[in-house]
């Protein structure tokens, strides 16, 4: 169990995370938020890559700073920046990460082959990482994080650059392994977590704006989503007022869909379903 208590991070006068309190248990946790909301900072604090300004992070009751290497042994991490040695082959890179994780050599070899298969890179494992596309690199990093089957898996924007098929494959795998471990998945791609996250934390300006299961969060904004159907000229005129609304083109004409506390005149409740994207827009983009 990973527990954040009054966690605060400042860069100079800039308050990036403000008094975060949260407990991660087993399962998938989605960390949603716009760019700059503090997701990566939170990840870096949990992995002890940056120093916290205030507060504590406990793992099973002990501060992770006290646990040090013992805590890191239980963590797998995919950073947002694609860090890797470009002159290593994919296989050699995973062997290297396995060695850094203190794995037994035979186990390291076996798991390398297993996770290369999982991320669909077995056939190109002999190639240098420098020749890989962004998506392939991302898959290598995910495989690296999975090595040694960590109890806590922290994935920062793991699906960046992946094609739809790979996204689905990764999501399925995460769902598969989440039963007996904690997986924290930071993203601003809502669909990544909608189907697999048991709990979602909406980060906004360094504070959790909402926490709950996707269903709970969706229920919370259900009455706040409305839409306006009209001509292109009408929509264009309204869009100036609701800049963050979404515009769709349908058979009936153009639709402007917005999420706000009060329904504006002329707007009607949505005909279709509400999804996590509306929740994201409601919290991350600012309430109307």
């Amino acid at each position, binding site marked *: 169990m990973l527990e954040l208590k009054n966690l605060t991070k400042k860069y100079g006068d800039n308050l990036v995370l403000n008094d975060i309190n949260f407990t991660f248990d087993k399962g998938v946790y989605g960390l949603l938020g716009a760019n700059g909301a503090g997701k990566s900072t939170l990840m870096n604090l949990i992995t002890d890559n940056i120093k916290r300004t205030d507060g504590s992070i406990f793992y099973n009751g002990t501060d992770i700073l006290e646990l040090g290497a013992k805590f890191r042994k239980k963590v797998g991490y995919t950073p947002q920046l694609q860090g890797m040695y470009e002159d*290593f082959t994919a296989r050699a890179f995973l062997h290297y990460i396995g060695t*850094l994780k203190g794995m037994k*050599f035979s186990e390291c070899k076996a798991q390398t082959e297993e996770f290369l298969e999982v991320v669909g890179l077995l056939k190109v494992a002999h190639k240098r990482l420098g020749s890989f596309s962004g998506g392939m690199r991302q898959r290598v990093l995910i495989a690296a994080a999975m090595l040694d089957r960590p109890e806590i898996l922290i994935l920062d924007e793991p699906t960046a650059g992946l094609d739809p098929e790979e996204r689905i494959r990764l999501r399925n795998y995460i769902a598969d392994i989440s039963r007996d471990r904690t997986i924290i998945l930071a993203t601003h791609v809502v669909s990544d977590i909608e189907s697999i996250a048991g709990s979602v934390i909406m980060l906004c300006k360094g504070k959790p704006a909402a926490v709950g299961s996707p269903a709970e969060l969706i229920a919370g904004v259900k009455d706040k989503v409305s839409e306006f159907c009209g001509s292109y000229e009408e929509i264009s005129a309204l869009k100036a007022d609701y800049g963050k609304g979404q515009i769709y083109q349908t058979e009936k004409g153009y639709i402007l869909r917005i999420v706000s506390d009060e329904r504006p005149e002329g707007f009607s409740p949505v005909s279709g379903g509400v999804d996590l994207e509306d929740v994201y827009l409601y919290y991350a983009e600012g309430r109307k």
Partner: protein
Amino acid sequence: MSELRRVLLSRRTLLYLVIAVFIGSVFFMYDCLSEKQITLTGEELTAYIDGYPEFLNDIQNNADEFGTIAALSGGFSAENIRKTAVDYRKLTGVTPVVGENKGFVLLSGYILGDLLIAAVTLLVASSFSEERKKGLVTLVRSTKNGRRMLSVQRTGIILIVALASSILVHTGCILTSTLACGNMGVLRPIQSVPEFSLCPFGITILDYIVFSVLMKALASAAAGLLLYLLSSIMESVLSFAICAAGIAAEYLFYGMILPTDRIAGLKFCNIAAVLRTDLFFNEYCNLNIFGKAIGFLPCAVVSMLIVLVVLCVLCILFTSGGGNGAATSGSLVQKLSTWFSKKAPVPPLPLWEMKKVFINQKGIIILAAVVYIAVSSALQYRYVLPHYSDVTQQYYNKYKGVITEETVTKMHKDYEVLDDARLKSELELSALSGLDTTDAIAKSKDLQMKIGTLMGRMSALQPLIDQAEEGLAYSKESGIEVQLIKTKTYELLLLDDNATTSKNSLYIILSIVGIFAGICANENRSNMNSTLRTSLKGRGRLTAIKLVLIGVTSIIVTASIFATQLLQVGEQGFNDLEAAAQSVACLRFMPFEISLLGYLILMFAVRMISAFAVGAFVMLVSRYCRSSVTSICINSTILIVPAVLSGTGILDLPSAADLIGFTVI
């Protein structure tokens, strides 16, 4: 012409040239300042110059004598002797002139200069394969001048770079030599230099230098073209390996084949031989070409020109292709590496770090190159080793041991006895001065000899008395017992040969900066830090392993580079190693008692620890740099520039080289 401008005027090419000239000149300066015996000077040189006409006569006489015998058997031997006589007859009238030869002899045998010329050419040649790595081949090939014309231009670039680097490195060395040793008198006949006494050509030193510049450019261009050709038809790692193997084979042929072997052509008509141009001028050899005796220089020049033309044609023909061969050979390498990575065990973390530093960041090339250059250049010239006359040796044996009042008194008494005997003999001699009888004349001669012997003994004893008195005074003051020992070897090692010590220190700093500048910068550039820091062993353990790697490498480099100096200086052996270090005057700063052996061990320990500290500093700088180049620049500014300025005597600055080359305070 755009490619010519792009490459020749690029910052990188200019930087290669500047670095080559800088390194070449700096190390040449150290050689110029070295205490080693480079060539004959003074009376020995005058004797050589005076004896040169006789030397030519001897050759003619030998040719006449052996030519008659050989003519009977005919064939190559007769032809060889006849040609030798003809070649040297052309030198009749050549008058060697005494002058400053040290700089020229050093220049003619300057291995580092040769390697720098070759290295610049090879680096420029290897840069042409980068566009394939960046996936730009199709783009380049789809342009109007992207095929044959580009190959022609690149072939020309290699030739131009080879020539430019040869001219610049030579110019740098000549200027340095002029500064350090004085004007080398380039208009003198080359035979003025004793090392070139066998040269059969009537040329001046300037002619030789011009020819040498061209020959070295020719050899470097051949190596560069070979690399360009190989890297365009196969994967770059494989091309480097094959090119290196080819050049190494050439070097082996050059080093191992005897001039008299049937396959001597492989020795002389070869890149390594052409790069060492001096060989063709300070030795005389004719090759057996179908029974005819042909000078080895024309053979080498002609064969190298043929090789160059063939390589140029092959480069123009084959490098304009798209590099399909590269994909094939690349896949072969990949298959091999896949097989290996599947079968081989996963290495432990220290080996991974070694791989990163020495293989991926090419540290092994820097290490091998620096150690090879340092050791081979150190072994090239010898020291004038300390010599003790028999009389001095006798006195040392007589008074050896701890210096006491008694020893000094005894020495003074012995000196007085000698002086009394000399005075007595001089009186006897003056008494005989007016007599011209046979007996008197014979006795006078004996007395003169006796006086000479006595004065010789006195002048041998006096320095020992001085040494003993100084030692005794020190003993009384410090309470540390010192011994009367032969100190010249230690003084040469610790005091006199500063230039070699500084040069070795600079080699060590260069290798450490070169190898470890990217040790952390590479991780910063690759954005690997957060991944590493989140791993079990990615923090303290990883840093410790890097430090151990730096420590072990620093020790190996320091030991191997300084060992050559130690072995050369101590060729006659280090005497009295068990005596107190303070027995040597320059070591009296030591506040505690330590033997000479202990001091030498301590000195090497300080040097190794300093080298390790330099490595740790390089790692620290690297930690805060985003690229190896930035790290190299910062480390060079802090570590190398002060060492160079101080070592060459331009500015008296404290530098890391003082610690790495620690001898005495």
